C-alpha cells in the first residue's frame, strides 16, 4: 500500500505549479469597481457610458494583471469570464426595457371598461379588448386541441416505434417545419380556404389551422426530447413484467416525461399566442366580438395591438389601447408560464 502511494507522488515540478501565485479572490470586484470610477470620470458620470467604458477598461486591466501575476491561461480565463458576464448584462438591457415600456405605458390604460367592452361603435377614447381576448383564447385553444394529440403521437412514433427511413424523414421534415415562417402558415391557411370559400375569405378555423402548423413541430420536438430522456431500464422493467408496449408507453413512459412535455406544450402556446402575422392574414380585424369560428373576421390581441398602433384614430387614443393590448398579451404569457411551472412541479416524478 505504502509503496503504491509513493510511486504516485507527483514530480517536484508539478507540485510547484499547484502553488502558483494567484490573484486574491476580491481582485476582480476591486478592479471592476476601480474601472467603473475611471469610466465615470471619463464619460462625465453618464450611467450607460460609465458601465460600457468601465467594462472595457476592466477587461484590459484584468488581462494585464492576471498575465503578469498568474499566467496567460488564467488571464484568458478571466477575460472570458468578464465577456460572458457582460453578454448577459447586454441582453438584459433590451429585455428589461421591453417589459418596462409595456408596463409603464400599458398599466394606465387598464380598467374594467377596457376588459369588458369591445371596439364596437367606439370613436376616439374608450373601447377595449373584450372581443380580442376571447378571439385569442378560443383560436389558440382550437389550435391546441389540434396540435397536441398530433404532436405527442408523432413524438411517440419517432421515439418508440420508428425504425428505418420513415422516422428519419419525418424528424428531418419536422425540423424543416420548425423553420416555417409564421406568415407563410397564414398564407397556407388562406390558400386552403380560398379554394373552398372563394377570394377574400376570413375565417376563425383557418387561424387555428395556421397556428397548428406553427405549434405541431414545437410540440413534437420538445416531446421527443423528453421521451428520449426516459431511461430504457423503465421500459425494459415493464416489458419484463409482461406489460404490453402501448400500456408501457401510456403508463410508464408518458407519466415519467409528463413534466417536460407540459413545459414543451406551454412554450408552444406561448410561442403561438403572440403570433400576429398569420392571424392578420386569415382572421383580419373587426370591432365586435365574434364567437363563430366558422364565419367572418375575428379580432385577436396581437392583431388588435398592431392595428391600434398603426391606426390610432384622429385623437391618437389608439396608441394607448395598443400598449394596453400589449400588456394584456404579456401578462397572459407570464401567467401561462407560471401555470406550466406549477404543473411541472406538481407532476414531476423526481419529487417522489
Amino acid at each position: 500500500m505504502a509503496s503504491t502511494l509513493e510511486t504516485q507522488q507527483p514530480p517536484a515540478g508539478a507540485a510547484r505549479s499547484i502553488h502558483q501565485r494567484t490573484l486574491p479572490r476580491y481582485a476582480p470586484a476591486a478592479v471592476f469597481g476601480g474601472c467603473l470610477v475611471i469610466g465615470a470620470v471619463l464619460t462625465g458620470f453618464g450611467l450607460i457610458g460609465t458601465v460600457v467604458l468601465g467594462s472595457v477598461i476592466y477587461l484590459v486591466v484584468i488581462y494585464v494583471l492576471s498575465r503578469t501575476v498568474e499566467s496567460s491561461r488564467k488571464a484568458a480565463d478571466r477575460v472570458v469570464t468578464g465577456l460572458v458576464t457582460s453578454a448577459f448584462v447586454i441582453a438584459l438591457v433590451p429585455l428589461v426595457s421591453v417589459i418596462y415600456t409595456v408596463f409603464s405605458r400599458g398599466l394606465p390604460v387598464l380598467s374594467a371598461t377596457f376588459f369588458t367592452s369591445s371596439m364596437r361603435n367606439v370613436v376616439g377614447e374608450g373601447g377595449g379588448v373584450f372581443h380580442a381576448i376571447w378571439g385569442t383564447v378560443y383560436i389558440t385553444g382550437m389550435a391546441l386541441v389540434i396540435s397536441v394529440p398530433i404532436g405527442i403521437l408523432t413524438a411517440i412514433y419517432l421515439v418508440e416505434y420508428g425504425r428505418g427511413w420513415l422516422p428519419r424523414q419525418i424528424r428531418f421534415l419536422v425540423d424543416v417545419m420548425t423553420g416555417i415562417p409564421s406568415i407563410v402558415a397564414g398564407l397556407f391557411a388562406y390558400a386552403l380556404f380560398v379554394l373552398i370559400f372563394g377570394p377574400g375569405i376570413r375565417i376563425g378555423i383557418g387561424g387555428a389551422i395556421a397556428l397548428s402548423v406553427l405549434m405541431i413541430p414545437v410540440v413534437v420536438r420538445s416531446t421527443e426530447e423528453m421521451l428520449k430522456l426516459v431511461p430504457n431500464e423503465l421500459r425494459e422493467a415493464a416489458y419484463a413484467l409482461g406489460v404490453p408496449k402501448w400500456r408501457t408507453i401510456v403508463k410508464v413512459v408518458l407519466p415519467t416525461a409528463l413534466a417536460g412535455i407540459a413545459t414543451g406544450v406551454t412554450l408552444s402556446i406561448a410561442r403561438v399566442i403572440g403570433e400576429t402575422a398569420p392571424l392578420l392574414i386569415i382572421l383580419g380585424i373587426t370591432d365586435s366580438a365574434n364567437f363563430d369560428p366558422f364565419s367572418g373576421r375575428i379580432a385577436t390581441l396581437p392583431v388588435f395591438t398592431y392595428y391600434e398602433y398603426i391606426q390610432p384614430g384622429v385623437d391618437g387614443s389608439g396608441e394607448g389601447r395598443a400598449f394596453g393590448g400589449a400588456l394584456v398579451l404579456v401578462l397572459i404569457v407570464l401567467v401561462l408560464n407560471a401555470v406550466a411551472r406549477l404543473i411541472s412541479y406538481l407532476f414531476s416524478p423526481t419529487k417522489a
Partner: protein
Amino acid sequence: MATRTRSEHPPVRRGDRIFSATALGAGILILLILAGVAIFLLVQGVPGITAGRGSLSGRDSFWAYVGPFAFGTVYASIIALVVAVPIAVGIALFISHYAPRRVALALGYIVDLLAAVPSVVFGVWGITVLSPALVPIMQWLEDNAGFLPFFEGPTLTSGRNMFTAGLVLAVMILPIITAICREVFLQTPRLHEEAALALGATRWEMIRMTVFPYGRSGIVSASMLGLGRALGETLAVALVLSGSAIYTFNTLAAENSGTIAANIALQFPEASGTAVNVLIATGLILFVITFAVNYTARKIVDRRSEFSGAN
C-alpha cells in the same frame, strides 16, 4: 428450445397494433401538412408569378418585384444572427457554467419568459424606444466608420432603418438561441467537465474542451432556429423598418430594402385580385428560402454530430 419462439416473438396485441398505427398516422399527417403548405402556396402562387405589371407595383416581372425583398430579408436576418449568436452563447454559458446555481435557475426562467414576448410587442417597443435611442450610435458609426458600405449614411433621424430592424431581430432571436444553447450546455456530461478540471484546465479551457465539442451541433441548431425566426419575422420588421423595393447595403439611410414577410403583412389586408396571388407567390419564395436554410443547417448538424460525441 423447449420454450420455443415465445420469448423471441411475443404475441402482437390488438392494443399495440391500434396504438402504433395511430402514432404512425400522426407522423404521416405531418408529412401531409408540410406537403399541403407547399402545394396550396403553389396553386395560389402560380397566377402571381405570371402576373402582369398591373399587380406588381409597376415592375416588369415577378422576379424583379420579389428580388429586393428577398435580398432585404436575408440581409436583415444575417445582421441579426451576427449580433445575436455570440451574445446568446455568452449568456447560455453564463447561466449554465458561471452563475451560482441558485441564481442560474431564476435566470433560466427569465430567458424562458422572454422567449415568449410576442413579436408585435417587440415591434411597438422598437419604434417607440429603440429607434430613438439608437440614433446617436448610428450617427457615431456614420462619422467614424462611414467608409464601410454598411454605415455610409446619412442617418435617418427617426432611426427606422435596417440597422434598427436588424437589432430588433437580434433581440427577438436572442432568447430562443440562448434557451437552446443553455439546455445543450447543461447536458454536457459532468464527468467530462470534471476530468478536464482535474487535469488542471481553467474554466474556459474546460468549456473549450468539453462543453463546446459536446454542444456544437446544438449551437448550430439553435442558430438555425434563430435564423428561421428572423427570416420569417413579420410584424416587428413591418413596424420598425420603412422598407422599399431597392437593393442597398447601407443600413443607416432612409432608403432600405424591405423584407418579404413585412411586405406581405403591409400589403395583404388591402390587396385584392391578382395582387393577392403575387403576395402568396412571394410567400412561396420565403418558404423556399427558409426551407433551403433549414435543409443546409440540418445537413451540417447531421455531419457534425458524428464527431461531437453528443450521440
